[in-house]
């Protein structure tokens, strides 16, 4: 999907360490380490990927690790290899069996 049109996308390969704040208009696929703030329309944290800081997006798919803060306005999926800690805000959530969740969970639209 992302390979067909890479405009507006960010790919962080395994072994790469990024520090700072990143605004990604389309897809952010993280196999390395990101320290700071990352905002993207769609975020994929691969099994080797780690985000230390704030992660925001519409759809977020986590196979790796995210610490501190997550905000997802559409769907948040924590896969069986995923580890998430800190403050988590979601509108729709799915956690596969085996996924780690440690922290506070908030529903953005609890009355829907």
């Amino acid at each position: 999907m992302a390979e067909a049109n890479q405009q507006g996308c960010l790919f962080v390969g395994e072994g790469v360490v990024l520090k700072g704040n990143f605004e990604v208009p389309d897809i952010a696929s993280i196999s390395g380490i990101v320290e700071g703030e990352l905002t993207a329309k769609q975020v994929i944290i691969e099994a080797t990927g780690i985000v230390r800081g704030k992660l925001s997006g519409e759809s977020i798919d986590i196979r790796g690790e995210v610490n501190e803060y997550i905000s997802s306005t559409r769907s948040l999926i924590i896969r069986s290899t995923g580890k998430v800690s800190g403050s988590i805000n979601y509108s729709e959530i799915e956690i596969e069996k085996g996924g780690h969740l440690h922290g506070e969970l908030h529903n953005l639209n609890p009355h829907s």
Partner: protein
Amino acid sequence: MQEQPDNFSQSDMPEEVDSEPVEQNFRSEAPVRSSINSKPSILSEGFTFEGTIVSDGVLNISGTVRGTVTAKSILIDSTGQVDGELNTENLVIKGNLKGDVNCDDLNVGPLAHVTGNINYKYIHIQRGGKISGKFNKN
């Protein structure tokens, strides 16, 4: 002389076939008897309980419970509502839960609403389940 052995072998065959189905019937009854022990306790829809429930077995909650519930396995059905503390190994939530949970295995269904402090070992939340509160993995 050659015909006699043939007759003997034919008469032996049906006897063996008859004896086998009888043994299979006895075997199939055994597992049915053992499953009676795992019968769940049921709090039906429309039933409201206030207080403490302790069970070593399976508890199905379709009604309303306010208080403390301790059981080996708890199922909160889609019509079930629990307000209080839950201690269990195996917890399945399809309905509403407000309160503190200590469990090993937590499974939250797509229509469930869960609020509270939750301590778990293994968690599975199906898409659409509404949960909020503090989560702690043991």
